């Protein structure tokens, strides 16, 4: 059994897991957009205007991505957006940590999360890595798993 074969049964769970994670993450942000904007501003990467705009856009992007991942619609694009979000979150958390910003993450609830630390970085790194596994295995046809390429398939019999 190859490594690629071993990972196939895990992919639907990974896809649904990310859908649930994103749905959970966006709920509190959608309910409290202004408070989320304060969390975004705390990262001191965006100016105030962009922080407000991000507070409106990011939760909606998480919601749309979650719906697509859960429903299996445009999985290739949804997986790519998911990976983009997870990688961006990792980058933001990393820069906040190295700049010694004592701020809440704002990842899953606004204003109430624990402060950013090594565990939060590890959590984000794991999510980012898994999200790219999903990108590499999602096919443009919309399937999240299955043979990655014809190279892995047996040649047709003559």
């Amino acid at each position: 059994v190859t490594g690629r074969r071993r990972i196939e049964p895990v992919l639907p769970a990974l896809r649904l897991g990310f859908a649930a994670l994103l749905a959970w993450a966006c709920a509190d942000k959608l309910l409290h957009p202004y408070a989320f904007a304060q969390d975004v501003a705390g990262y001191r990467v965006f100016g105030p205007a962009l922080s407000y705009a991000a507070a409106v856009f990011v939760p909606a992007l998480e919601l749309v991505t979650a719906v697509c991942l859960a429903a299996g619609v445009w999985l290739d694009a949804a997986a790519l957006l998911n990976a983009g979000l997870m990688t961006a979150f990792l980058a933001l958390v990393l820069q906040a940590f190295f700049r010694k910003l004592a701020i809440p993450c704002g990842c899953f609830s606004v204003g109430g999360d624990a402060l950013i630390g090594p565990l939060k970085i590890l959590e984000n790194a794991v999510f980012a890595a898994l999200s790219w596994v999903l990108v590499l295995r999602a096919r443009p046809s919309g399937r999240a798993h299955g043979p990655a390429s014809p190279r892995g398939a047996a040649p047709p019999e003559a």
Partner: protein
Amino acid sequence: VRTAARAAALAALALAAGAALNLLHPRGVPPRLVAAAAREREVPWNRITVDSARALFGSGRAVFVDIRERPEFDAERVPGALSLPFLSYFRAPSSFERGRDPDSIYVVYAFEPSRPEGRTLLARLRGRGFARAAWMYGGLSGWLERGYEADRGPGAGP
């Protein structure tokens, strides 16, 4: 290419959904707040010290404006101050601006010495012709530390 195009389409859908949800949200981010935040660096950050503010208070030449939420305002404030919660102002600025003399001195404050929202609100007020609006640098905390007088209990709105 197809994956990227689909991802862009989903992002555009999220942008539209985010804007719509925010407009429908009773505690959403008002668009005029984003506009004011985008312009705030073009506007001089007009600040006065707590002691200067106290001198204006003594002369009766200034209107004090408290941008905190109503429960905080009711708990403790500068005597005679108006309550103008930050988000409420951006949702309905005319309720404050209508019939108010733009040539008066407006001393805007929060509890903290400085708050990012203060600069945004000042940018908006000054952009609307309230050229003598100023931020009380030091905040209500500085005011109380100096032993200046304070009112407690329900106060006036805009």
